[in-house]
């Protein structure tokens, strides 16, 4: 009994949405090509688990690869900017400008440059992860604990020792913020890129289904996308929280 009420308390908004969806479809008497009811959509997902899983796995792998590359490069360039004032002067304004450009605007350009295949999707995700990482990690490199600068001064720390023992560890919480931001963004960027130019993955699956008016399949894909994005977000959020408590 308490289990059920707990479930209701946590998920009432989702259930309400489903009820409204069902109600709207039945009351307005909509054709399933316009908007299928929730149950047929769910049935499509449940009766083709392999298809959905394979495409979801593909999209998540692409997103993970892109985010990993973007995080690594963003952090690396931020450290390079920390080490050299010249680089910092060049890179910081660039990073600030590009981190505010939406991914959608970059997709056609990158596709034109790199060709229409999976590595381009990875590149698009990497670019979307690169700039926020650069900005956050760059800020973290300057956000040192109180007195730490003086401490490393009296310890006679070389610049390399300062980087390794102070500056890099100090930026880890900010790297986790970058992770929290770029993981859901990376999943969305991967799906968007697949939708616009891909040959596989959830984004492509949606476009392909929608183009032949298989609306159960299309909405089923949206459902899986939503669940995957929410899962990724809460995982990244939890990881960030764990690291933050460890670091303070």
């Amino acid at each position, binding site marked *: 009994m308490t289990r059920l009420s707990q479930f209701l308390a946590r998920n009432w908004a989702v259930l309400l949405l489903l009820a409204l969806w069902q109600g709207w479809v039945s009351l307005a008497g909509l054709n399933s090509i316009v908007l299928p009811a929730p149950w047929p959509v769910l049935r499509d997902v449940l009766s083709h688990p392999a298809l959905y899983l394979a495409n979801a796995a593909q999209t998540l792998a692409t997103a993970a690869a892109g985010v990993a590359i973007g995080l690594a490069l963003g952090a690396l360039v931020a450290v390079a900017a920390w080490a050299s004032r010249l680089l910092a002067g060049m890179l910081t304004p660039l990073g600030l400008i590009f981190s505010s450009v939406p991914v959608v605007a970059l997709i056609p350009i990158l596709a034109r440059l790199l060709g229409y295949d999976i590595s381009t999707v990875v590149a698009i995700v990497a670019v979307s992860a690169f700039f926020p990482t650069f900005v956050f990690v760059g800020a973290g490199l300057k956000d040192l604990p*109180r*007195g730490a600068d003086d*401490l490393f001064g*009296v310890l*006679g720390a070389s610049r390399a020792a300062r980087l390794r*023992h102070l500056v890099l*560890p100090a930026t880890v919480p900010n790297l986790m913020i970058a992770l929290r931001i770029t993981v859901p963004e990376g999943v969305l960027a991967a799906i968007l890129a697949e939708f616009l130019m891909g040959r596989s993955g959830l984004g492509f699956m949606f476009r392909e289904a929608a183009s032949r008016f298989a609306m159960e399949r299309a909405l089923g894909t949206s459902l899986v996308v939503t669940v995957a994005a929410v899962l990724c977000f809460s995982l990244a959020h939890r990881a960030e929280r764990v690291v933050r408590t460890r*670091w*303070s």
Partner: protein
Amino acid sequence: MTQATPDAIRLDSVSKSFRLDDGNSVTALEGIDLGLREGEFVAVLGPSGCGKSTVLRLIAGLESASTGEVRIEGRAPSQLAAAHRLGVAFQDHALLPWLSVAQNIALPYRVAGTKVDNARVDALIELVGLTGFRDARPSQLSGGMRQRASIARALVLDPDVLLLDEPFGALDAVTRRHMNVELQRIWSTRTLTTLLVTHSVDEAIFLADRIIVMTGRPGRILREVTVPFPRPRDPSVLRTPEFHAMVDELTLALEPEEAAL
């Protein structure tokens, strides 16, 4: 004591002013002449804001004098730090929050690029009474425990110059007394030139060879007192009439306004 040995640490007519954000500047120190012989223990007393920490930071090479000169063994203070021969316990402990107590204390080894002597780290943890907390992180410690960890860190590389900025400020009287006795024990086993900033007159007299009393605005040296008690000093010294007389004298020196009334 032989007058022939040159001072290990020298401040020659040092002044220090800070530029403030509004463009004005504040004179923190003026006309400071101070020498510490090798192995000497000097305590600095003075009201809050009189420039004690600034003196310590000048010697640590963290600030540079506006006029005058600071020398350690005839060279710039930064050279002592670069040789990893300087130990400092800061007023606000400056422990790294992501490292455990043991890792914080071992940090000077890592920064110097030498092998961590775990036995020594453990011995120091025991010395400052943090056994059982070696794997705790600073956020899990009390203020006084953090200060003790930072003292252990200052001692770990066996420095030649030790600078302590109110290291026992957050300790209760009993722990403070215990730390004083321990510090004296370490200090008696080797030559360690020490500058201790403190607000406790008792502590200064118990530990130091010489006491500097400062006044503020701008910071100057008001007087210097040599502590006559022979070493090693037993805590029973604290109960002698000579000790009490000296405490009274210095306490009075710290309150010149009231003395004039």
